[in-house]
């Protein structure tokens, strides 16, 4: 199992490249979502008696998963629509029923991945009452997702940048959407701490954090990402808690 476990469990495609196995639910990774029971994850040719809308949605999601696989294999620039349709095991015509172009399909894939990543970060953050612990949990959730899904990590942090201005705008917006989690740390801080926080502090923290992560993915060292947790926690908490307290939260396990 080398890629996109999450997409597989979501959409019931396996990461194997062969046409015959792509649509089958993976025996190692059974499809658990009630919406996609394993026997339906594969849509047999011809009459299958499934509602039209379901088929369409399933096809769209398979195309998204297919794009993620194709991009992992060939990079964004080297990916063709033929690669995508082969991984998704749908026809070229079906592709064009859902997307006008490779770029459009990439945008859909990017949005799907980022929505999931943001959801996980948000949930982890909300589960902690204490703000420093919430930041720690949010960062941990992000690193965990990116580590478990190295190909999606590459798609969302590296390939996204070469996929054209529309995706770059979304990339910037996704990073900026992390700013409010840090801004929440200003609440209740002593006056002398607040005086030391400039309006751009949170943006710089988020930018520094993402830069640290994406440099490793770009260099093909995605396996180092998870170990960044203590450094990232200390880096982002220091302006609010001071270095001693931030290091304490960062280094507890």
């Amino acid at each position, binding site marked *: 199992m080398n890629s996109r476990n999450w997409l597989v469990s979501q959409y019931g495609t396996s990461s194997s490249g062969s046409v015959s196995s792509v649509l089958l639910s993976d025996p190692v990774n059974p499809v658990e979502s009630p919406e996609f029971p394993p026997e339906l994850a594969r849509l047999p040719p011809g009459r299958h008696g499934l509602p039209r809308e379901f088929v369409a949605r399933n096809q769209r999601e398979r195309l998204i998963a297919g794009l993620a696989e194709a991009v992992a294999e060939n990079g964004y620039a080297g990916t063709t629509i033929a690669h995508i349709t082969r991984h998704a095991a749908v026809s070229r015509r079906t592709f064009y029923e859902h997307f006008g172009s490779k770029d459009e399909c990439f945008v859909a894939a990017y949005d799907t991945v980022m929505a999931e990543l943001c959801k996980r970060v948000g949930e982890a953050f909300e589960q902690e009452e204490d703000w420093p612990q919430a930041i720690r949990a949010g960062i941990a959730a992000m690193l965990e997702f990116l580590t478990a899904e190295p190909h999606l990590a590459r798609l969302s942090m590296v390939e996204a940048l070469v996929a054209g201005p529309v995706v770059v705008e979304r990339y*910037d917006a996704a990073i900026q959407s992390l700013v409010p989690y840090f801004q929440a740390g200003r609440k209740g801080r002593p006056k002398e701490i607040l005086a030391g926080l400039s309006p751009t*502090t949170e943006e710089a923290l988020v930018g520094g954090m993402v830069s640290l992560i994406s440099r490793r993915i770009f260099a093909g060292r995605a396996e180092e990402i998870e170990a960044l947790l203590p450094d990232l926690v200390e880096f982002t908490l220091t302006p609010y808690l001071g270095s001693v307290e931030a290091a304490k939260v960062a280094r507890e396990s």
Partner: protein
Amino acid sequence: MVSEKGYRGVVVADVVKRAGVARNTFYENFGSKEACFLAAQEYAMSTALERVVEAAGVHEAWPQRIRAGLTAFIDYVAAEPALARLAMVDALSAGPASVKCYEESQQAFISLFRLGRDVSRHGADLPETMEEALVGGVFWIIHQRLAFAGEISVPELLPELVEFALTPYLGPDEARAVAAAGEAEGSRATRRR
């Protein structure tokens, strides 16, 4: 050209038209649009970094070196917004060689920042990756301003970035004092001009 159309929108014909040279001349100098872009990016970054090194070298004390270096960098970005946009915004979507150049230009700052551990009271305890994160943060802020406003405001941005960069080493009070001293110097220099 890239600043108007973005990297993907520019074709070689646009470049030669704007530069007033023949298509042949383009290919005598650069093998492709990619090579031409990379040359422009490398030019922008090496010019900016030369100025950083020169400005930082004037000072003995590390905090002042950092302040002078950041000032030189941001002044360059403000003076050359189109080149800066190419090197810090469009570069990210111009392929692996450009991303690599972008990252390597951060490396020069990372080394300069690292010297701060020697003057910091808790230099030995700072996380290993901190300089990378600080420089990444500074570049990100500039990237954001260039991407959305197309330019940066030096008096607004400079003191904030200096303070952000120095705080982990010197603590918030001293960092702010160094940044504020730079502001005073900056406005005196402006008045002299």
